[in-house]
């Protein structure tokens, strides 16, 4: 039944109004950065309606000549591989923790949570000294391993949760039909826990993609990631606002499609969707 009363219409208009105000408020910085990225350096802080024609592609062209694209690639490599490796190790681990009758599971869960809760600064200094002595500073391997301390607990924890929602009977039925445990895991349990797996992978990727602190300490010129490289546009006596704007857009763009996918799967995984 559609409510057409006056009070409902007023409420609805008010609700939409609030939504648009909030949306405007949230989107304003992004829109501003987008405008800045097309502005000439000399009119960067002038109101754009005062000189609407002072637009340029120089900021975009300039950034392709800088080291930033390499840093963006580094971010992809590190976020992609650390998530992939954490999934390869973490998904079976989550399955084992959810379905086996291991003793000490309680402690394992707390240990994992502790890893997630500990502030990175607690890890980074010992990690830095270890890496210097092991020659792992400014190496992809070192950086990816460091990032796994962020992604692995997240993935194990959330996959543990996802697999716990898959009914034991489903796996038992597969084994009764002659499947090995590995097959039951890959062909039965994993597809059932797919929304959780996708959500965990995306969240893991985003954590690494946005990381500044680990990259600040562990990387140097050859493996520097994008969030740290953005800071290099601020120099001693000038701030290259145009390049910072372009770099911010470049850092945000790859996340948009991921967020769209994540949105769907995170909702599914939260509502515990399991197809029988």
């Amino acid at each position: 039944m559609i409510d057409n009363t006056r009070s409902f219409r007023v409420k609805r208009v008010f609700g939409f109004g609030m939504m648009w105000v909030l949306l405007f408020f949230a989107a304003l910085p992004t829109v501003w950065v987008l405008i800045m990225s097309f502005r000439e350096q000399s009119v960067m802080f002038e109101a754009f309606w005062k000189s609407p024609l002072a637009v340029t592609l120089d900021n975009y062209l300039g950034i392709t000549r800088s080291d930033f694209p390499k840093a963006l690639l580094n971010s992809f490599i590190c976020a992609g591989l650390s998530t992939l490796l954490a999934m390869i190790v973490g998904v079976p681990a989550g399955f084992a923790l959810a379905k086996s009758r291991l003793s000490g599971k309680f402690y394992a869960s707390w240990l994992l949570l502790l890893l997630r809760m500990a502030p990175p600064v607690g890890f980074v200094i010992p990690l830095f000294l270890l890496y210097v002595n092991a020659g792992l500073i400014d190496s992809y391997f070192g950086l990816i391993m460091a990032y796994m301390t962020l992604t692995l607990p997240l993935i194990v924890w959330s996959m543990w949760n996802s697999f716990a929602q898959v009914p034991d009977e489903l796996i038992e039925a597969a084994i009764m039909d002659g499947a090995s445990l590995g097959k039951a895991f890959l062909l039965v349990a994993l597809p059932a826990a797919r929304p959780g797996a996708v959500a965990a992978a995306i969240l893991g990727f985003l954590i690494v993609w946005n990381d500044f602190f680990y990259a600040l300490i562990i990387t140097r010129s050859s493996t520097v990631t994008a969030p740290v490289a953005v800071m290099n546009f601020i120099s001693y006596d000038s701030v290259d606002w145009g390049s910072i704007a372009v770099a911010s857009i470049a850092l945000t763009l790859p996340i948009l499609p991921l967020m769209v996918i994540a949105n769907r799967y995170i909702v599914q995984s939260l509502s515990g969707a399991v197809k029988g």
Partner: protein
Amino acid sequence: MKKFLSTLFSATVLAGVVSTSSVVNAADELNVVMFGMPYTKGLAALADDFEAKTGIKANIDVIGQDVFENRITLSFTGKSGDIDVVHTPVIQVQRWVSAGWLKPITAEVDAMAVKSDIMAGPLDAYKINGEQWAVPYMAATGLMTYRKDILEEAGVEVPQTWEDMLSVAAKIHNDDTAAIAMRAVPGQGFNMFIFPMVMRAYGGKFFEDYTGGDLTPAINSPETLEALNVYMKLLNDYGPQGAGNFNFAEVQAAAQNGQIAFAVEGTGIAASLVDPEKSKFADKTGITLPPAGPAGRSPAIAVHGLGIPASAKNPELSAKFIEWAVSTETMTKIALAQPFSNFTTQPVAQNEEVVAKYSKVHPDFLTVQAEALNLAIGHYRPLLPEWPALGQAIGENINAALNGLSSPEEALEAAEQEMRDILGN
């Protein structure tokens, strides 16, 4: 399961392939860490020159200043030895030396043929307890830019003193174009790079007798108070909107957009305001020394150089790199490739191409800069290990007064008290 294992295996192999375990301190490699400015960017572009000359590969990392501070602090306190040559601002050198972070390089510098070509003032700024701790490559000074067209229209001359500046500002200030902008954000490199120009011009000082060794804080004086009142009146009454929280980037943007008539800034920003490629008002902009006061003129000075960390594993190679980096040949190449006019290796100024390049930016540029360098005192900002903390504390009080959070008298009293607390006297 087989498929799973093979995926795991290939991923591990892939990770191994892409990992480029970079070499830290191999015998023929050097790691140089610097923060971004025209000279350092120019030096990084010449890394191949160094390798061709010496056979040593230099990994020159030019990074943002915040990233730089974090990296070196971690590296020096952890004595990790992963940095062979480090960007050493003179304002930090006392603190680094007292923390044992730098290696004395007196013998190495004495052996450099280029030593006699380096300006004595900036070189001596790195001398502490009789030892040399770094070699300068640039000395930026405080300069003033002014809009010739605005002054002409108002029928006023370029102000020679801060007093003149107040009366000129009153005449030219209007809603479209403010009279003046200067750095106001608190920090030893922000408002405390600019404010001492006013303070020293009025005879204000940080200590009772810095050169005589009496480090009793003396910032709470009638002279500094007069200077603070001038600085506040200029920015509050004749500055653009929000001037109380401007930093160099905002001052630069305001001048480039034609929102201000005067800017008192460092060489780098001042150069960008008179360079036709960087500002559309460049042809209407003049450049001169910052105004004087009853006690004379005291342009700001900031010296930057290259030092060797105490934990560096191969100091001979590091010294070789520094000698190459400050050589006339390298400096000349950078002065031509970058907006880098404040070099401290003197013969570069005799190079015809360099002279021609900077005369084209502005005919008076090199002469005004040389004049400012002559007038500047080495301890413009005190060369003490505690200066970064002192500068921050004083800067915050100056900014508080400017923004009406305290009266100028209260601000100076608080600044002096905080100085005493930091110095423990």
